[in-house]
């Protein structure tokens, strides 16, 4: 008996089968490319819709600080909102970077047993899962009343500094920045912790073996080695803070005017969009689209930088 007779009938795939197969692979390719260029499409749509405002206001839009949607006397300048976006994000970073880095060190070293460390890491991640609108609600009813005495004290005693130069009214730059800081802490902590944990153990062993203390090792060996991950995580946090909408809208007071004081109501681009889009008409829509383009550009630059920096770290130790 020859083996060939025992085998079932040999058959090659039918043309239909091959066609289906090829179509399937093609479909996945097309969808992948569509997904890949979605970002570009989003930019195009927003830029296209902003064209009338770009033509009407040009670069004065960025430097101007009047925002007047009254028909016939329209005037749009986004400088106070740009300032508010940048300043609220920078204050949030000033608070979140030390806290996040400290927490990351705490969680990547063996200060406490690994079980409670896992629990704390999980809790920090849960912090990221809470919707921003809930942070906004909490900020309005809990945080603002809570920091009101502090804000009053700052104004009464340090009022000569322009940053505290106005009577606190409740909503303003300060509460908004505080909530932004809380909201970007998880991502910054997680990335800093991961990049510290990803370092080869030899680095630590070598440093300790040469007689360095734990903290000397952390500051002079581990943090410098993980710096690109830490900076990358900070950039991602900055990207979040720049574009964060709900918490800012609900807490910053939405005042379209420039003020030095952190206790005064201000505005960010994201909260301008959230506030005005639902009722916008005519040229105001494209002015808002123009503002959205600016916000998009800022977050894109920050995110692409973060992506490049984090990838460089991966390449280094993999």
């Amino acid at each position, binding site marked *: 008996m020859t083996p060939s007779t025992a085998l079932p009938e040999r058959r090659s795939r039918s043309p239909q089968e091959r066609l289906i197969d090829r179509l399937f692979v093609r479909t996945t390719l097309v969808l992948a490319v569509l997904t890949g260029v979605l970002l570009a499409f989003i930019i195009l749509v927003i830029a296209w819709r902003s064209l009338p405002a770009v033509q009407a206001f040009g670069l004065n839009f960025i430097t101007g600080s009047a925002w007047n949607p009254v028909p016939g006397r329209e005037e749009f300048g986004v400088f106070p909102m740009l300032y508010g976006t940048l300043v609220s994000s920078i204050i949030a970073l000033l608070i979140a970077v030390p806290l996040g880095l400290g927490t990351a060190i705490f969680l990547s070293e063996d200060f406490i047993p690994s079980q409670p460390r896992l629990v704390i890491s999980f809790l920090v991640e849960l912090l990221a899962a*809470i919707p921003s609108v809930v942070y906004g609600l909490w900020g309005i009813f809990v945080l603002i009343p809570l920091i009101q005495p502090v804000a009053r004290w700052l104004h009464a005693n340090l009022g000569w500094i322009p940053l505290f130069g106005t009577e606190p009214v409740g909503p303003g730059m300060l509460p908004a920045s505080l909530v932004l800081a809380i909201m970007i802490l998880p991502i910054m902590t997680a990335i800093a912790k991961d990049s510290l944990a990803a370092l080869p153990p030899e680095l630590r062993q070598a440093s300790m073996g040469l007689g360095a203390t734990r903290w000397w090792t952390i500051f002079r060996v581990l943090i410098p080695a993980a710096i690109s991950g830490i900076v990358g995580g900070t950039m991602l946090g900055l990207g979040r803070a720049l574009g964060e909408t709900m918490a800012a*809208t609900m807490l910053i007071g939405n005042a379209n005017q420039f003020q030095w004081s952190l206790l005064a109501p201000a505005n960010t681009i994201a909260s301008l969009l959230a506030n005005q889009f639902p009722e916008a008409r005519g040229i105001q829509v494209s002015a808002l689209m123009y503002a959205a383009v600016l916000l998009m550009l800022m977050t894109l630059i920050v995110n692409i930088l973060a992506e490049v920096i984090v990838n460089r770290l991966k390449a280094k130790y993999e």
Partner: protein
Amino acid sequence: MTTATLNPQVAGLIKRPQLRNWVGWVMTGLVGLCALLTIIPLFAVLGFVLVRGISRFSLTLFTQLPPPPGLSGGGFGNAFIGTIIVVLLGTLISVPFGVLTAVYLSEFSSTKAQKEVARWVRFGINVLAGVPSIIAGVFAYGLFVTTGIFGYSAAAAGVALAVLMLPTIVRTTDEALKIVPQEVRWASVGLGASNYYTTLRVVLPAALPSILTGVILAMARAVGDTAALIFTALFSSFWPRGLLEPIATLSVLVYNFATVPFKPQQELAWAASFFLVMLILVASVASRLVIRRQPMR
């Protein structure tokens, strides 16, 4: 014995590390404090949402419409259903795109040119993941509302949410497909199965639990998202009337009712927040448990 024989200078050196011990303890205390400060807001937010949300919580919340300004009672039934509709729409749009994109990235990008395509697609996805949710809203608004294709509607909101969900779904599916052992594919192809059959009937089912986890995470994010909905779904005081009409959602309800001066509305906002947070926490914890149970990791 040995210390007594030491040269006094050496003995002094051995005692000196006192200072650096102090520095170490202070630093350790500081980073411990950082960790504490980082998780305090979690408990502060959860605690308040729990206390203020649960007092208003009842089943009638899900069956009644929000009360008119100034009146008490009512519920957020329309927003509850609206959230389900909008999130399901987003899922229906983003899952096919996301899963098949990941299939291409992990299964069919083998030649050099294909790998280059995959690299760019992954880069685009990663950057897309960092796009603020309000930009997704502006995109859907610019594409559908200003052009008059949909107007303010559940459909426009679904597209905006799909944009936000897509990166999570692609990434988790990509990861899930990577951990399916290569032998599974070889076995399938060795038995004569085509790419199509291998992927749809062998590889994807093997990766299904992790893919579902990713989808649930993406849905959890979409449920809580507000910025993408404010000016796509808008809001409505009535029951949903169709996919092409403005629709109420829980997150927008929280936003709208948090800023009105009426107590009953504010209580509804807290109750809706409580429900949203519980939903999202359960989803995060459940997905984490699924991932941990994966035998292949």
